[in-house]
């Protein structure tokens, strides 16, 4: 007989043992971080009794580290704590903008970007921003750990690449150079508390006026957020002038495979994703130029 249960382990090995025990006995588990999706789903789409494994008491998941080489955001770090980290905000303004768009003050006090990633909504705002920033997932596995690029972590609507017995410890980013800057824009009918009709995350690296590296990712226009390599290729080697931005926008439009729903038609979303791409690139470019 299955029933709800709650445990709050304090080490990675305890979490892994709990996950393994449940897999063996066929009982369901639910990793709990901020809980802002889990608690809602528990009362609506997923009422299946299961064991909540609260990962907020682990040292590793509470790591928020900005080092000389690397940036690490643990899976228990709520958005509000990221926003309070001034250096992180300077290094990854786009990622922080994306996280800041998710939910109210109350929700941001609990919600984590790793939870946003695991929840794998096609419209999750932090996902395109993480992809653009080149974030890599740090996954705890029964054998140790493995790394997986964020663009490969989400595999479909509400589905992630975690295998049974694994959980997400955090995301890792490189510490960017001063000439690398990101930006994230989404379109919603309201300015607050809404779900993206389309979203675009970008990151550009300049050498003088020239773009030498770029990453562009689109959200809410396919079953998962997509890295658009063609858009980046249209930018590299240019000065990020209007013509280059236009081409990158068209690449996003071509890569988008949106649905039509109450938030917007597929045609509208395709149009909007190109506009957002151009605007986000202009913001990132100006940031990289120190404007």
């Amino acid at each position: 007989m299955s029933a709800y249960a709650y445990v709050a382990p304090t080490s990675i090995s305890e979490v892994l043992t709990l996950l393994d025990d449940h897999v063996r006995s066929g009982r369901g588990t639910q990793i709990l971080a901020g809980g802002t999706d889990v608690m809602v789903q528990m009362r609506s789409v997923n009422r299946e009794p299961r064991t909540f494994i609260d990962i907020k008491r682990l040292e590793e998941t509470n790591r928020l580290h900005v080092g000389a080489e690397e940036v690490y955001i643990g899976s228990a770090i709520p958005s509000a704590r990221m926003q309070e980290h001034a250096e992180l905000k300077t290094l990854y303004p786009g990622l922080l903008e994306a996280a800041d768009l998710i939910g109210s003050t109350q929700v941001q006090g609990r919600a984590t970007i790793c939870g946003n990633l695991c929840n794998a909504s096609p419209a999750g705002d932090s996902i395109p921003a993480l992809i653009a920033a080149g974030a890599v997932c740090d996954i705890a596995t029964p054998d140790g750990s493995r790394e997986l690029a964020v663009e490969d972590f989400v595999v479909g609507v509400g589905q992630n690449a975690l295998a049974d017995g694994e959980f997400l410890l955090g995301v890792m980013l490189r510490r960017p150079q001063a000439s690398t800057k990101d930006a994230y824009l989404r379109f919603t009918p309201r300015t607050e508390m809404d779900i993206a009709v389309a979203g675009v995350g970008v990151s550009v690296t300049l050498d003088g006026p020239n773009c030498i590296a770029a990453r562009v990712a689109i959200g809410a226009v396919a079953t998962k957020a997509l890295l658009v390599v063609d858009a980046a290729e249209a930018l590299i080697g240019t000065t990020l002038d209007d013509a280059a931005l236009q081409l990158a926008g068209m690449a996003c439009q071509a890569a988008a495979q949106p649905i039509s729903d109450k938030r917007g038609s597929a045609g509208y979303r395709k149009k909007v994703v190109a506009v957002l791409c151009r605007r986000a690139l202009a913001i990132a470019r100006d940031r990289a130029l120190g404007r």
Partner: protein
Amino acid sequence: MTKLHVSTTINNEAREYLCEPNQSMLDVLRDELGLTGTKEGCGTGDCGACSILVDDRLVCACLMLGAEAQDAQIETIEGVAGESGLHLLQSKFLEHAALQCGICTPGFIMASKALLAKNPNPDETTIRYWLAGNLCRCTGYDKIVRAVQDAAAELSHPA
């Protein structure tokens, strides 16, 4: 279902309770502890009526399990007024008639208190964005914002 034993601090008082593993903090406050000042509006984190402070962080009690409160410092609307009377925000809400039916009021007070603790002198835009997660279906937003502005002004420049 085995109940869980939780030891926590609510409004500076040590409290212990038993709760179901899937019981929300909101239901624990209201149904187990009789602290009914925290209201349930939507139950899905959209309306902010159940706003409380957990370790000084503003959260929706409906989006938290009661079990998660172990060792935490919780503050609810019942802890806002001091021995000498109402909190300044409560007085200002009364003065400005910043409430109609009153269901959203505890949540607005908790959210405003968290804002003023972080930013004692917020401008109107900051107040409106900060309070965007609190819904008032009587739609008396202007009076609420004025009350918070007035409280902030008095905090910055005490009469």
